[in-house]
């Protein structure tokens, strides 16, 4: 799976993207977020308040827990501030 980070998530994690192999431990977005929190103090901080983190799968906003496949693109970003 391709994981993308934008705006302050990218700044804090010092990473724009990474590839994570699909595993049975993370079959959906909820479990992926839970796993992210276990990756160290910076990840735990970034994913501590999910009110300020938006999730998109294959460039579409998701509204609830969403099943994931190995070829999926998952993006994490803050509420948008364009315009």
């Amino acid at each position: 799976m391709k994981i993308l980070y934008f705006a302050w998530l990218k700044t804090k994690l010092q990473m724009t993207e990474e590839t994570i192999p699909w595993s049975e431990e993370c079959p959906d977005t909820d479990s992926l977020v839970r796993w992210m929190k276990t990756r160290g103090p910076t990840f735990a901080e970034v994913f501590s308040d999910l009110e300020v983190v938006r999730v998109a799968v294959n460039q579409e906003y998701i509204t609830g827990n969403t099943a994931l496949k190995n070829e999926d693109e998952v993006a994490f970003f803050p509420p948008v501030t364009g315009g």
Partner: protein
Amino acid sequence: MIRVQRDIFDIGKEIETLTNGRTDIGAVVSFTGLVRDFNDGTKVTGLSLEHYPGMTERELSKIEDDARERWNLQDCLIIHRYGDMALGEPIVLVITASPHRQDAFEAAHFLMDWLKTKAPFWKQEMNASGETNWVKERESDLKAAKRWNSDS
């Protein structure tokens, strides 16, 4: 039509291109968002916009489709810039064309309110001491966007 670009745009030229040779359009409304020198009481010296290539175009196209479904639009253009911008430069342009003014006015208002809360762009402000800050979302923008939900 939608365009996501780094380059600056010319508002007059865009309106001219959209209306050139047409005699069926009765009303053209445009909105331009500019880089201003203050935000929440703090002096701003420059702006940088990050976006999500691919998703940005998809979201803007969906917003345009929504507007065309709700109002009688003969044409519609959304241009949104990304990258570094100087004070006073344009960030975003929305142009709507319709036979009568009401559709063009309302659709332009809707397009701006919806793109502000849906299109994946993130503003980063620079201040006089050289610090950069990610801009936070505004409650007033969320309220403005919600207003259009009750109409549907």
